[in-house]
C-alpha cells in the first residue's frame, strides 16, 4: 500500500497546483452513492451471516418457541457482547468498502477528502441500519398478519392465545378437574381482573 503517494489515494494535488482550482466548482455532490449503497449491502449481508452464526452458537435473540427467546426470558451478557461484535465487524466492512470503492476526487483539500470519506462511511452505516430496520418491521408485521388471519391455522391461533390463560389455569387447578372445570365466562371474568 505504501507505494501509493498521498495524491494517488486522496486525489490531492501538490500545493503548487492548488491555485488552479480556485473558483472552480463541480456539479457533483460529495456523496458517492454507489459506494455507500454497496458498503451498506455488504454490512447487511455480513451482519446476517454473523447473526446466523450466533444463532448456531445459541445466542439467538428470536426463538420459534413462545416465551423462549432472549427478549422474553433471559438476555445474557454474551448475547449483548455478540450484538456489539456483529455491529462492529459489519460496520467496519461497510465503511471500509465505501471508502475504497468511490472514484477519486480531484483537486480537494486533504481535510475535505478525510471528512467526505468519514461522512460516506457514516452514510453506509445509516443506509444499512434503515434497510435492516425496514426489513425487521416488515417481517414483524408479516408475522402479525399471519397470526391475525383466522384461516392461518391452528399454530397461529394458539400463538395468539390469551396471555393470562396459563395463570387462570393455575388459579382454577383442583383435585377434581372434570367436575370443577370453570365455565368459559368464569375464565373470562378471572382473566379480566388482570
Amino acid at each position, binding site marked *: 500500500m505504501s507505494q501509493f503517494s498521498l495524491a494517488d*489515494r486522496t486525489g490531492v494535488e501538490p500545493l503548487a497546483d492548488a491555485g488552479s482550482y480556485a473558483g472552480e466548482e463541480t456539479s457533483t455532490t460529495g456523496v458517492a452513492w454507489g459506494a455507500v449503497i454497496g458498503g451498506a449491502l455488504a454490512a447487511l449481508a455480513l451482519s446476517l451471516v454473523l447473526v446466523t452464526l450466533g444463532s448456531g452458537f445459541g445466542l439467538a435473540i428470536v426463538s420459534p418457541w413462545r416465551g423462549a427467546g432472549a427478549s422474553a426470558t433471559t*438476555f445474557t451478557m454474551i448475547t449483548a457482547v455478540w450484538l*456489539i461484535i456483529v455491529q462492529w465487524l459489519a460496520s467496519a466492512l461497510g465503511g471500509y468498502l465505501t*471508502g475504497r470503492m468511490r472514484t477519486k476526487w480531484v483537486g480537494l483539500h486533504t481535510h475535505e477528502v478525510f471528512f467526505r470519506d468519514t461522512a460516506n462511511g457514516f452514510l453506509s452505516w445509516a443506509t444499512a441500519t434503515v434497510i435492516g430496520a425496514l426489513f425487521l418491521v416488515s417481517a414483524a408485521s408479516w408475522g402479525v398478519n399471519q397470526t391475525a388471519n383466522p384461516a392461518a391455522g391452528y399454530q397461529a391461533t394458539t400463538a395468539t392465545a390469551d396471555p393470562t390463560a396459563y395463570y387462570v389455569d393455575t388459579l382454577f387447578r383442583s383435585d377434581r378437574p372434570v367436575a370443577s372445570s370453570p365455565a368459559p365466562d368464569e375464565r373470562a371474568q378471572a382473566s379480566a381482573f388482570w
Partner: protein
Amino acid sequence: MPADDATYLSTLVALRTGLSQPSAQDRITAVTDKMRHDADVARKAGAALALFTGLSLLIGAFIACTAGLWAVCNGTNISLCPL
C-alpha cells in the same frame, strides 16, 4: 386488584376448586405475584435488549465513520491522517 374484585374472584375460585375462601385468596395472591414477576422479568429482558441494540448501533456508526476514513488514510502519508 380492588377489594371487592378480590372477594368475588376468591369466591369463584373457592366454588370451583373446593378450597376454603382464605386459601383461595392466598392462591390468587400467589398467582398474581407470579404473573407480575414473570412480566417484570420479560420487561427487564426487553429493556436490556433495546439498550444493547442501541449501544451496538452507536458503536457501529462510529466504526463505520472510522473505517471510511481509514480506507483513505491506509497507504497515505500517515502524519496527515487524523487517525
